[in-house]
């Protein structure tokens, strides 16, 4: 099974190893692990020059809950992987996305791609992440000392996904 949406944590090393086990044509496995950051809610302030610090800073992320659209999520991820397979010469692909409540430092997502060559593996892995960020129905709600807060989609993610289709 190449796609999983689950509450449980995953073992990135075992998943990466599984993509080349028993075959001798895999020369490259590129992978990505996304994790919960404690400082995400402070991002806007930090980038505006106000470093998070001190007792007055309340934008600390204590936890995060991931909601998804059961049924559509899997279909969307499958479509993204199929699109990657059409664009690059890749073998196995593994996508795991966790849902439910996660704490800072917890793993959220794994994308791992095996290929003969590193360029295809890297490109497909980054493509899948960019598309997942903009096309797979997951939503993050952060718990901060100020209360719950749905994460806003970032324009930079739209740009990241858009660069794979320069003609669009």
């Amino acid at each position, binding site marked *: 099974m190449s796609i999983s949406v689950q509450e449980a944590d995953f073992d990135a090393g075992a998943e990466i190893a599984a993509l080349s086990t028993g075959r001798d044509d895999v020369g490259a496995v590129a992978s990505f692990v*996304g994790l919960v950051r404690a400082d995400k809610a402070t991002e806007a302030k930090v980038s505006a020059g106000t470093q998070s610090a001190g007792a007055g800073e309340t934008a600390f992320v204590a936890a995060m809950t*991931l*909601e*998804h*659209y059961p*049924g*559509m999520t899997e*279909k*969307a991820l499958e479509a993204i992987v199929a699109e990657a397979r059409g664009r690059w010469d890749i073998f196995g692909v593994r996508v795991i*996305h966790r849902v439910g409540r996660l704490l800072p430092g917890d793993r*959220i*997502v794994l994308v791992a791609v095996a290929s003969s060559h590193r360029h295809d593996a890297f490109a497909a892995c980054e493509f899948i*992440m960019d598309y*997942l*960020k*903009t*096309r*797979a*129905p*997951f*939503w*993050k*709600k952060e718990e901060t000392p100020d209360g719950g807060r*749905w*994460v*806003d*989609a970032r324009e930079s993610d739209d740009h990241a996904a858009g660069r794979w289709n320069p003609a669009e």
Partner: protein
Amino acid sequence: MNVKILFFAGLREALGRGSESLALPDGIGTVGALRDSLAARGEPWSALATTKNLRAAVNQQMVGLDAPVKPGDEVAFFPPVTGG
């Protein structure tokens, strides 16, 4: 056949419900028209009109607001996705 409508994330919370089932009103043939007819119910349904960059799916495929809707479809409304 009714249309099943799903709401997610902040929109689900604003509406106080995750789903709705209704007979497709006469003259409503697109996702956008369905959205407008729901939003016209007043509070809290106006969140469907005010959610920034509202996204929609029909039968679990992301679509634009001009996509057609017919009885029996599963329609979903939600904010831009933020996984990964």
